C-alpha cells in the first residue's frame, strides 16, 4: 500500500459531499420536529373543556380579548403549554447529555438516581413540612444539585469512571427511594396523594407566575450546557481518546454533570420528574438522526413533543384525568425494556 499523500485535485470534495448530505438530513429532521412541536402546541391550546378554534387562539395570543377564549386559552392553557415545552426541552437535553457522556443509553439521570435528590427533598418538604410553590422549587433544585455532587464525589477514585458513577447513582437512588417511602407513610393520605402526583410529574400547577422563573433559569443554563456539550463528541470516544484530543475527561464530566443536573432539577422543581422523558428523548432522537451529529437539540425537541402529546392524552383521551407523568411512564416502560434488551444484545451506545 502506498500512502497517496498528495492532496486529491479537489481536496475534501468526497468528504464534503457526504457531510453535506448528512447535514441536509439533519436539517430536515429538525424542521419536521419543530413543526410537530408547534402543531401539538396549537392543538393543546385549542382543545379543552371548551374548545376554541385556531383563529381564536391566534387572536388571544396576539393580545385581543376574545370572549370565552381569553380565559381558557390565555390564562389556563398557554402557561401549561409553555411549561410543557420548557420542561420537555430541559429533560430531553439534560437526559441526552448524561446518556452521551456516560456512553450508555440507560444512564439517564432518572434511571441512575442522579436526579433523585430533587424528588426526595420535594416529597419530604410536601409531606413533613407542607411546603409548596417557590419554596418547594428552591428546595428541589438545591437538593438535586447537592445529591448529584455527592454522587460525583463518591465516585471519585483518582478520576471518575462512568460505570462507577452509574452504580453509585443507583445505590444512592435506592436509598433516597426508601426516604420517599418513609415520608409517604408519615403523611396524611391527602398529602401522600399530592406527593405522589408530584413524584409522577404533572402540569396541573403550571400557571403564569411559574413560567417566568423557569424560562429565566433555562435561558441561562441551556446555553452553558450547549457550550460545554461541544466536548461530548470527544468524550464519547472514551476517556483516553478524549484526553488525546485535548479534552480533560474528569473536568468536562464534572461541568456537564452539574449543569445538566441543574437543568433537570429546575424542570423537576416546576413539574415534578416527568417519568422517562429524560430517558426516552435521547434514544428517539438518535434513531431519527441516524448518527448525523449532535443530539442535544433534537433530543430537546423530542422531549417537548413527548411532554405536550402525553399531556394531551392524559387530559383528554383517557377515562381518568391522568397527570402527564403517568402517560409517559406507561408508554415509556415497554420502550425502556425493549431498548434495554437491544442495548445489552449489541452493547451499543448513543
Amino acid at each position, binding site marked *: 500500500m502506498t500512502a497517496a499523500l498528495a492532496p486529491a485535485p479537489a481536496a475534501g470534495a468526497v468528504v464534503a459531499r457526504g457531510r453535506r448530505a448528512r447535514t441536509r438530513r439533519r436539517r430536515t429532521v429538525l424542521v419536521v420536529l419543530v413543526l410537530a412541536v408547534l402543531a401539538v402546541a396549537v392543538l393543546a391550546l385549542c382543545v379543552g373543556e371548551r374548545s376554541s378554534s385556531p383563529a381564536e387562539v391566534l387572536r388571544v395570543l396576539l393580545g385581543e380579548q376574545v370572549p370565552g377564549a381569553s380565559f381558557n386559552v390565555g390564562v389556563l392553557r398557554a402557561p401549561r403549554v409553555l411549561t410543557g415545552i420548557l420542561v420537555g426541552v430541559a429533560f430531553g437535553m439534560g437526559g441526552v447529555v448524561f446518556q452521551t457522556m456516560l456512553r450508555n443509553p440507560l444512564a439517564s439521570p432518572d*434511571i441512575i438516581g442522579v436526579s433523585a435528590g430533587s424528588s426526595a427533598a420535594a416529597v419530604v418538604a410536601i409531606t413533613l413540612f407542607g411546603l409548596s410553590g417557590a419554596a418547594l422549587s428552591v428546595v428541589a433544585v438545591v437538593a438535586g444539585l447537592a445529591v448529584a455532587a455527592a454522587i460525583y464525589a463518591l465516585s471519585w477514585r483518582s478520576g471518575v469512571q462512568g460505570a462507577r458513577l452509574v452504580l453509585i447513582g443507583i445505590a444512592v437512588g435506592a436509598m433516597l427511594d426508601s426516604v420517599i417511602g*418513609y415520608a*409517604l407513610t408519615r403523611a396524611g393520605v391527602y398529602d401522600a396523594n399530592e406527593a405522589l402526583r408530584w*413524584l409522577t410529574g404533572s402540569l396541573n400547577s403550571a400557571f403564569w407566575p411559574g413560567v417566568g422563573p423557569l424560562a429565566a433559569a433555562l435561558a441561562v443554563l441551556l446555553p452553558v450546557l450547549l457550550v460545554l456539550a461541544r466536548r461530548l463528541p470527544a468524550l464519547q470516544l472514551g476517556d483516553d481518546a478524549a484526553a488525546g484530543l485535548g479534552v480533560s475527561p474528569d473536568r468536562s464530566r464534572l461541568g456537564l454533570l452539574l449543569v445538566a443536573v441543574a437543568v433537570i432539577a429546575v424542570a423537576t422543581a416546576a413539574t415534578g420528574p416527568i417519568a422517562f422523558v429524560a430517558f426516552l428523548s435521547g434514544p428517539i432522537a438518535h434513531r431519527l438522526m441516524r448518527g448525523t451529529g449532535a443530539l442535544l437539540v433534537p433530543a430537546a425537541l423530542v422531549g417537548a413533543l413527548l411532554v405536550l402529546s402525553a399531556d394531551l392524552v392524559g387530559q383528554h383521551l383517557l377515562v381518568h384525568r*391522568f397527570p402527564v407523568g403517568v402517560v409517559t411512564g406507561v408508554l415509556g416502560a415497554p420502550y425502556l425494556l425493549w431498548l434495554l434488551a437491544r442495548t445489552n444484545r449489541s452493547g451499543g451506545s448513543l
Partner: protein
Amino acid sequence: MTLTATPGTPAATLGGRPASLRRRRTVGLAACVVAVLLAVVASLAFGARVVGPSDVVAGVLHPDTSDIAQAAVRSRVARTLLGLLVGAALGVGGAVLQGLTRNPLADPALLGISSGASLAVVLGIMLLGLSTLTQYVWMAFAGAALASVLVYAIGSLGREGATPLKLALAGAATTAALGSGVSMVLLSRTDVLDTFRFWQVGSLGRASFAELGQVLPFLAVGAVLAVGCARGMDAIALGDDVAVGLGQRVGVIRAVGGTAAVLLCGTAVAVAGPIGFVGLVIPHLARTFTGPSHRWLLPTSAALGAALLLAADVIGRVVARPQEIEVGIVTALLGAPVFIAIIRRHKVAAL
C-alpha cells in the same frame, strides 16, 4: 471426570485447606450464632416499652398475660421469628443470586424483584380487592418471580452475559418501568394508595403466627435447594465454561439455584415488603471469613442475615420512640453506604 477426582479443582483444594481457614470459618459461624441470640433477646426486650431480662424469659416460656411487660414480650415473639426467617432468607437468597450470576452487586431490591412484587400487590388490591397480608403474599410472590426472571433475562443478553453493570441497570430500569405502573394505579385510586404505601416500606411490624406458618414451607424448600447447589456454585464461580469442563451441569444448577433464590427472596418480600441491601451486604460480610466456598457461605449468610435484620429492626424501634422506623428504611440507610464501599473497592474494569 468427577469434580473431586480432578487435581486443582476448588473441591480438591478445599480438601487440603489450611487449619487456619477452617478455624476462621468455625469461629465466624459461631460468632454469627451468638449474634443471632443477642439480636433475639434485644428484639424481645426493646420497643416502645423496654423489658428486663427476667421478663423476657418469662414472657417467652410461660407468659403471664396480666403482666404488661410479659405481654409486650409475647407480642414481639412473632415479629422476632419473622425477622429471623426473613433475614436468613435474604442472606441466603442474596448469596445464591451473587453466586449464580458471578455478580457482587446482586440484590433482590436492586434487581427489580421487589418492584415486581409491589406492582403485583397493587394490582391485587385494585383488581381482586385483596385486603389481608396472607392474600398479598401470593400476589407478591408471583410478581417477584416474574420480575426476577425478566430482569435476569434482559441483563444477561449480549456477549459478556450478566455483568454487574448490566444487571444493575436492568434492575433499575425495570424498577422504574414497574413503578410507573404502580403510580398509575395509585393516582386513580386513593384507597389503594392508602393501603399500599404502608406495605411499600419493608416492615416486620405486621407479623402474625398465621403468616409464619404460611411462608415456612416456601423458605424451607428454598433453603434445601440452595444448599443442594452449593458445590455447583463453587464451580460456576470459575466461569461457565470451566464449570462445564469440571463436569457440572450448569443449566441445571442455574435453574435450581434460581428457583431457590426466587423462593427465598420472593417469600421474604411477600411477607415483609421490600427490604433492600440485606441480600447484597450480608454475603459480602460473610465472605470475609468464610472465603468463597458456598457450603460455608450459605449457612453463615443465613445466621448473619438473621442477626443483622433483627438488629436493624431493633434500631428502628428504638431511635424514634414511641414511633417506629420500618426496618426496610433502616437497612437502606445502613446498607447503601456499604454498597458504595463495595463499588469503590472493586476495580471498575471488573464491573
